[in-house]
């Protein structure tokens, strides 16, 4: 059977990963959101593919308020979670909108790409990317002020990612999701 399917697969690594690999850079993830816009189709994996047996996923675009428990609740739908590492602000050690989810099997990680990547958690569309594995240090944001790089220069206002400054209270969090809720009337059950 031909290796190429008649429909694209959702369980392939992103252009980000491949572009980083080609440049020989380290697999730091914070800049992926910008890099992703490169209009390149990911190359076929090279001889030694570091993602061949990957059991870890990078998960991005989380709200700063999303908890480990919420991540567990959603991601367990693809298999038991071996380890969860929340991405933290380098300075104040608070969540900064990403995490690493490690499964016991490669298949669970692939299924997660297929079934969970691009769906909502805590009312935000999250993105998943296969990852060669967590290493100490990678749990911290690499932006100047400690969070992810994308939150340094982001021009849009995103309450879920510190858009109102750091001392946001849970009331504001609530306001945020409810505002978003009002805007989106898509697929409402009625």
């Amino acid at each position: 059977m031909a290796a190429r399917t008649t429909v694209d697969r959702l369980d392939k690594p992103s252009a980000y990963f491949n572009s980083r690999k080609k440049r020989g850079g380290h697999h730091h993830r914070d800049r992926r959101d910008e890099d992703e816009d490169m209009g390149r189709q990911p190359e076929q994996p090279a001889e030694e593919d570091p993602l061949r047996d990957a059991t870890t996923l990078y998960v991005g675009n989380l709200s700063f308020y999303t908890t480990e428990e919420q991540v567990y609740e959603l991601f367990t739908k693809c298999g038991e979670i071996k380890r969860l590492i929340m991405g933290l602000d380098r300075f104040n050690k608070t969540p900064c909108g990403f995490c690493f989810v490690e499964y016991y099997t490669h298949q669970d990680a692939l299924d997660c790409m297929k079934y969970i990547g691009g769906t909502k958690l805590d009312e935000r569309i999250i993105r998943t990317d296969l990852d060669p594995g967590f290493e100490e240090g990678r749990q911290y944001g690499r932006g100047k002020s400690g969070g992810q790089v994308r939150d340094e220069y982001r021009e849009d206002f995103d309450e879920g990612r510190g858009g109102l400054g750091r001392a946001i209270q849970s009331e504001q969090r609530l306001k945020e999701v409810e505002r978003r809720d009002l805007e989106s009337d898509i697929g409402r059950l009625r």
Partner: protein
Amino acid sequence: MADYDRGDRFRPGGGGGGGGGGYSKKRRYQRDDDDYDRRGGFKNRRIDSTPPHQRVRRQLLTIAENPIRAWHEEVASIANLFTDNWDDELLRRNFVDLVMQLSLEQPLKTPFLAAVVLVANTNQPEVVDMLLAKLTAGIEAKMAEGEWRDVKLYLKLLACLSSALEGDGIFPVLEELFNRAAELQTASSDDTIGTELVKIILLTLPYIMVTDRTKWAPKAAALMDNTEVLASEPHALQTLIEPYHTEATEENPNPSASLTKLLQTQLQAETVAGWPLSFLPEPWKFPVEELEQQTKLDNASKHALPTITIPSNLPAGPRPLFPDVYFSVYSDQEVESVPSESTAASSLIRDALTDTIGILHFNRNVTARHLVDLDCYFAPRTFAARATPFDRLRDIEPPKSTWKPEDVAVDAVFSQLFQLPTPEHKLVYYHAVLTEACKLAPAAIAPSLGRAIRYLYRNIVRLDLELGNRFLDWFAHHLSNFGFTWKWTEWVDDVALTDLHPQKAFIKGAIDKEIRLSFAQRIKNTLPEPYKNLIDAEMEEEVPEFKFKSDDTPFAAEGREIAILLRKKAADDEIQPIIERIHALALDNNLDPLVASTDVFVTSVLHVGSKSLSHVLAAIERTKDRLTDAGAASDAARSQIISAVMTFWSAHPGVALCIIEKLLNYSILVPSAVINWALVTEAGATRGAALSRAHVYELVFTTVIKVTNRVRQVVRRSGTADDAMVDDADAKDAEVAAMRDLFRAMEDALVSWAEGSKDELVEMEIDDGEGRSEREALIRRWGQQWLRVFRRRAAIEEAFLVEAAKERRMLAEAEAEAGKEVANGS
């Protein structure tokens, strides 16, 4: 539409692009060719510069997707592009492979692919021989692998090509398959492959018939006479996989039929009516003004079908074979919004859709696209207009169809999500398909989902408990993707029901699951007033209160001291004196000292780790030895570990379940302790009410699945490895024995609840007179539902062990045979 418009900010996961998903710049680049197409005219030369093999590929991939384009035009244009470039070797080779691959990956398109081949046959007959050679070889290979769905899909392609075949077409193949099925069924009463073969025969037949009804009618009638006996043979486990639960005392008024049995009846009706099959597409038919093309087609050359040799040994294949039970969430409506069970359309459309859903798991966006566009792939006028509101179906005049395409699509997904014993893919895949369909066509799909939800809620009393919980899980997950909005007001009266009522239990379970994916305050704000009381103050607190904070709690001082030591990461011997003090105090108060100290210690660990799951896991990691000793000390102490976790996190059962799973991984707990806690301790203490709580079911179910997965893993390994064979065999036997013990213990515990003979149930008459019998009936019902779920699990696992043993025996025989040959040869 805000969310949908935002799609361009989100790149479909994995960056592989998601045909049909949102799109990104990258995708637009890939689409360049199409852009030139659209500009048309002066850019035409640019199209021609695309090599023909790429153009044919692109057009074949998207065949029939455009509802505006007439089928015969599209078919003829692809066929001509292909035969005009016949000298292009790359194109010739790719064409046949692509047609075959598409028939396996996008089966809704098979009739259209066949039509292209048939038109190509009028110019280059050789292409049919090329395809037939590969297709027949492919069918043989797939049979040898036990890939029955692929066998079926290749046969479907072959069937659509019947008009280009000599003699009896593919009937000899079907007859041969039937003979084999009959042999298998005669040889063994619990055979599943024979039944599968009959299903394949019956599903192939209609696709032959639409190519020439009069010519094939006698052959079909003869075959149908043969299949009748086999098709009505019920599967050994049929009653266990019924989607509805019937009380032991009542007859199931309407047992769900297997697909094979239904098909036999439906096709018999078709035989009588002269095979109208008006819903199947016939894209090889040209309109009257294209008489010349039609004549060419009718007179095209016929080809001999290469012999298909059915392998002597037919394996069951990678997926266990269970009968497909027909399931519909739209079966009780005044207007028929989906084909009724009596029509062949119900089975054939469903079959094509479930194949699509099963195959395209690697791109849910495309799956959803096919479902939303399903009317493109069936004959015109098969369905009502898209997004026709249900209330308007009533106004449709008789010859016109009332089948709502989105109902048919949603029904197909639910039939998979609710398949017993286990669907082909993880449940979350079906959740994701429904979410994407809802995003693609919200106005059409959302109301259909709403009606499906109402049906399931109405029928939850009789729905199998496992399915009821799948419904619960999907419902909460789905809402989490759409702003947690649901018309809760329509169930508002049910809030007053007792918690033991299945509908109330559903409401409570759904709210808990919603909170797990979000947070209490958020969910509370989505609920109408009467529901708000179901979310109490404790549920709104993210971190539970430490009960030893209050001096009124026994052992409060000790609890606080232990917590301080744990926080300081003090050595274990600093904790020991406090534990001993608890023992002494407990003895003075006539309490079980081990239970008392376990409760204080575990609760303190939970308190110290209450900030997040990583905190509690770290705390457990540090105190693993003491926890393990506590768990080993006595049955009561072991049970107390679970009680402590469930009590501490009672307002957030999701966290409790997560912790218990980790305790099982650390072997601090064993599965039987968890089962015993739920079915004996907790169920006893709540006089059976625990059985109605969704999270208790979830706890037991995931624990059982953990055990059965483990057994399957060990059994599979012992079938393959040969060096560590002996050790493995012992380990395997031990695991299997432990699993059987577990199921036996569950059976014992549940039977007494199901029969109402449980002491706690009998004692109940003291408190409440009137409500007693109602309560008792509800508890008994829960007991029966539980019993059914876990008896089925046990039976499925036993069936797996039987199959595995069969495979090992066959493997051993094959090896012995090979060994003999080597010995003889040397």
